[in-house]
């Protein structure tokens, strides 16, 4: 049971799509902003394409709870096909939101969410990633959407800090930083809230 001043996020993706990396990156950036953070994956028999889950806790106080998150404030679905196999809205708090990687509108997605009445957000992460990075890396766009929708971090500061983090992470290939930053900004502009 998390306290009220804590934001809990659950990520659903498939092995190889970078959901875990996005989750850890969010923890890193939120930590840079002085928050207390947790970013952790839940591992099964991991393999490319298998459903995976990852979690974030972000708060003003250090959180000693080390269980998985069962009642998230936000759910991020990095792969639309998971909607058919995984109960993605399970435990999602009423005032929270689900953010899905899809070219469809929030209204269309709501029909597939079996009665979820809260906020539904969508982002065409594949298209944005292909436009700005030349390949399908859906995790960076979804990270931007998660930050924008949740408001867990202030947008401008998030962008400034993540650029720092990228400089560290991509020290040996700085040429990818510009594309990733463009991806983040575009995704924040394009995420649809319904």
């Amino acid at each position, binding site marked *: *049971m998390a306290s009220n001043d804590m934001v809990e996020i659950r990520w659903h993706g498939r092995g190889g799509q970078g959901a875990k990396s996005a989750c850890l990156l969010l923890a890193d950036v939120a930590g840079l902003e002085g928050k*207390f953070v947790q970013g952790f994956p839940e591992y099964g028999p991991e393999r490319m394409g298998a459903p995976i889950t990852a979690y974030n806790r972000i708060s003003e106080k250090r959180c000693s709870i*080390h269980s998985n998150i069962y009642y998230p404030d936000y759910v991020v679905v990095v792969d639309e096909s998971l909607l058919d196999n995984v109960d993605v809205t399970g435990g999602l708090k009423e005032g929270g939101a689900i953010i899905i990687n899809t070219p469809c509108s929030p209204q269309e997605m709501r029909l597939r969410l079996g009665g979820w009445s809260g906020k539904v957000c969508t982002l065409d992460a594949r298209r944005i990633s292909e436009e700005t990075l030349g390949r399908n890396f859906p995790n960076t766009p979804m990270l931007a959407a998660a930050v924008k929708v949740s408001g867990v971090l202030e947008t401008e500061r998030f962008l400034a800090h993540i650029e720092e983090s990228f400089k560290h992470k991509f020290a040996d290939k700085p040429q990818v930083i510009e594309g990733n930053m463009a991806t983040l900004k575009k995704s924040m502009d394009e995420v649809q809230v319904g």
Partner: protein
Amino acid sequence: MSSRLSGNEAVAYAMKQINPDVMGAFPITPSTEIPEYFAQYAANGEVDTEFVTVESEHSSMSVCIAAQAAGARSVCATSSCGLALMYELLYVAASCRLPIALACVNRALSGPININNDHSDSMGARDSGWIQIYAENNQEAYDNFLMAMPIGEHLSVRLPVMTCMDGFITSHAVENIELLETEAVRRFIGEYNPENYLLKKENPLAVGPYDVSPYYMEHKVLEAEAMKAAKTRILEVAADFEKISGRRYGLFEEYRMEDAELALVLIGSSAGTAKAAVDKLREAGVKAGLVKIRVFRPFPGEELARALAGTRAVAVMDKSEGFSASGGPLFAETRSALYDLQERPYMINIVYGLGGRDVKTEDIEKVFARLAAIAATGEVGPLYTHMGQRSREEIA
């Protein structure tokens, strides 16, 4: 220095700051990242360590033993079946009195094969003569590894040290962490200057030869005495560590135990989850508390008896089965430690979290509810149960 690191990266970073002479390296999930990160440090020239890649954990521990016997500081990391494959060598390291530092990232033992966390691997090695220190989170994993050498290398101890953290839950979770400056770490660790070692030409010696019956038992007594002496040394090192870090450590941590009537005894990351449950129960007026075991070897029996003496009901929670048919290893030791108390609390054993079974604050609250009922009625019920499993009817 504030940062955010996973438990694995934190321990690898501690190793980098220590700059050991030798690392025996063989990968196994979930400890693989430790030699992975360290290999980068070695390749980048950030450490002077001889990074020895081998074909098995039996060999990685053999490398550490040979190097340490030669007078070099050696480190290693492993998990689960990797620790099991080292088993023979663990005893060799301890009985040769070689203060190797091993990071054990706790994972269930096969079978069935499982990569997730429980304590069956290190609990299986509990009688090998290694000091065992457990962490709740990444910070403690880092801090414990930094304290390993000053503890193990001291003349009164000279035993290998295994620092343990929960696989994935701690090893793969990125959290905030306070790191020490490398210079401060090196001052704290100091130089390794063993009295005797294989390559000391003034005093050539053999290490690990056959020990005949007229001597073997004396050597075992010395080893046992060293383990007893380790308790004092662990506290001395903790006091020194507090001076440079501001972080305080003991043999165990008492959380809200001052007036506690109902208490848990447990190890590792679940203690953090349980602290949140204790806080919630305290708000509701329940006198709940917990003892988180940090040092399992040497076992702090007398101290634990004092800590639990005022309680009315205690649940000892084991994250390994043990197959003794009468409870897990932590239960056996804790129950034994309380035998000499004039008035003992009721005590039950709960085996939990095997093979990565998640533990929630709600689960811990149920355990306290059962303790409250025991304290109120004096009816203990089943002594030893498994929590969070579906194969038989659940009893807290």
